[in-house]
């Protein structure tokens, strides 16, 4: 993937570049808004990482401008503000996801992977991975042709894992996308629901599909 990083803080930019390159991505950098905008206009990037506060042209205006010109490249916003309104503002101008500094680099990588998946083909009717099959119309799940009975929340959790098959999803990605919770809970909500889901669709089927990535999150691996 070729990723454009528009970030004015050299140290943060360096960390991000390092992490993305370690994952085999090609990173182009811009240090201010106007440079970032002209680079992004080339349209050759798989994803953009845009800081909210940039010299010359702020991140929000930059993305608004890009979207107005018809550029559809997925955008991940970064911000130092923990502001609760900032996320909404970022998504409103056409951002695809939002990450508040400081963040774990693994979180950033996971989210970049998740947003670049979007837009691949239209919404599928069935999600498949190995012997697992999810029918989004009938709301049913089969594993090796056996019906798996899931609660609605477990269904949504599995759907999100299936849509991100082969990619690490973090705890906060799950909290935000499955439960719409935008804060750090003090109870183990994710672990609890994940363990119930796995007990129903992953135990006793020979090999497990969902794996825990210690300190990072989970991944659904399909061969």
């Amino acid at each position, binding site marked *: 993937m070729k990723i454009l990083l528009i970030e004015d803080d050299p140290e943060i930019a360096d960390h991000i570049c390092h992490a993305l390159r370690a994952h085999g991505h090609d990173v182009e950098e811009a240090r201010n808004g106007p440079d970032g905008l002209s680079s992004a206009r080339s349209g050759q990037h798989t994803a953009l990482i845009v800081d909210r506060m940039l010299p010359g042209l702020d991140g929000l205006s930059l993305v608004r401008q890009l979207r107005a010109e018809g550029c559809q490249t997925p955008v991940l916003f970064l911000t130092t503000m923990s502001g609760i309104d900032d996320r909404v503002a970022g998504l409103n101008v056409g951002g695809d996801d939002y990450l508040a500094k400081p963040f774990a680099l693994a979180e950033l990588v996971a989210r970049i992977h998740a947003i670049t998946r979007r837009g691949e083909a239209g919404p599928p009717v069935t999600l498949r991975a190995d012997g697992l099959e999810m029918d989004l119309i009938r709301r049913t799940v089969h594993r090796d042709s056996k019906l798996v009975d899931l609660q609605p929340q477990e269904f949504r959790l599995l759907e999100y894992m299936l849509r991100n098959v082969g990619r690490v999803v973090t705890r906060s990605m799950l909290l935000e996308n499955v439960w719409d919770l935008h804060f750090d809970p*003090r109870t183990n909500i994710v672990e*609890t629901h994940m363990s119930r889901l796995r007990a129903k669709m992953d135990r006793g089927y020979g090999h497990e599909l969902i794996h825990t990535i210690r300190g990072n999150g989970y991944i659904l691996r399909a061969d």
Partner: protein
Amino acid sequence: MDISCVPIRIFRTEGFRVAAIFVAIFALSAAIMAIVTLAVVDQELRDQIVQFANADIGAIKDGYRTEGMGEAREVIHQRMAAPGASDFFLLQQGATEKVAGNLAPMPPKTGILTLPYPGDTAGRTILGVGAFVAPNLYAFSGSDLRTAQMARQRILRTLIWIFAGALALALLGGMIVSRSFLRRADEIATTCRAIMAGNLASRISVRGTEDELDRLSETINAMLDRIAALMTDLKQITNDIAHDMRTPVTHLRHRLERARDQSSSVEDYDHALETAIAASDDILALFNALLRIAQIEGGARRAAFTQLDLSGLLAQLGDVFEPVAEDARHYLSLSLSGPITISGDRELLTQAFSNLIENAIIHTPAGTIVTVSLQRRDDEIVATVSDDGLGVPPDEHQKLFQRFYRLEASRTRPGYGLGLALVAAIAELHGASVAVDPQAGRGFAISLRFPISPGAS
């Protein structure tokens, strides 16, 4: 107070202005009164002179008619000698022949007359009445107007003295009133200066007269109390932050030190780094929670309010936390009525109720039943999160909502005591009150009471 500048400043005070206006009104009315009094007195004296003169003329006429010229002359002589009677008489035959009296003959004019004083002098005049006693016999009786003029002047002089005295009294009163007004205004200014200089405990004295200055003083004092309370809050928060940040940062430092001194393998270092990262995340989370509370208290979020079904929101949270409660060997029970719409911020309300539910799960022993209930009452919507755990001592109830307040029993558990402060801030943003429900017997409950807004269904 700088005494030397007081006389000048007095003239600028409202009290003095009011006094001056009263003095002017008083002076005007006193002047009108004096003019009217003088006119009345003057007229009265003139009437009296004319009355005496008419009586004299009548007596002369009577004397002449009954007993002839001799008697008429006799009457004049008698009256001239009598004290308190008219001063001047004349009985004159034809145009020039004086028969009796103390005036020189004059052209016989009848009616009320004013004559120059005989032989002079400086504008003195005689007021009197002239009449014909018989066809060729003319009589005049009159008095010196000077008596009347002197009386008038005495009265005028008295009035001027009264007027001057009253004016002085009014001025003095005005000065005294404005002096006391000034003194109190100065008192307020002095207090304000003392507060500016840093003596925040200083307050303006109130006299209990409940006048405008008292009310002003009370308002200023109330304002100062409020500012002082906010300052204390701020100081408290700053202290709390400084104190509460020290603990996690110290822990982080200890861990790093231990890692440096005791780690001998890559795994040891990995583990140490991971715990250090987790500790720094905790510190950042603490900052974020504080910023979030500040942001919510700022009120900017109100712009993002939408109509939402609180019952549905709590039902969803029930679904999220039910398995969590079960894993912690608690029971989560919901008691929700039908859809209840309120105007609010979904994200923040979700966080507030999540906080309350998590508190109930974390701070109670296994086997506790946690109940989330929602009721519509007459004029409010009451959302309650309760448990049948060990409860909280009543004297701690108020403090629970303060930042960084932690119950003695929970100090060993992770957390910074910001959860309920955040709940309180979110409740306030929604115009809701938040309080600990008094519990009969066991357990603990917190209720958010939303006033029913017009348009809610």
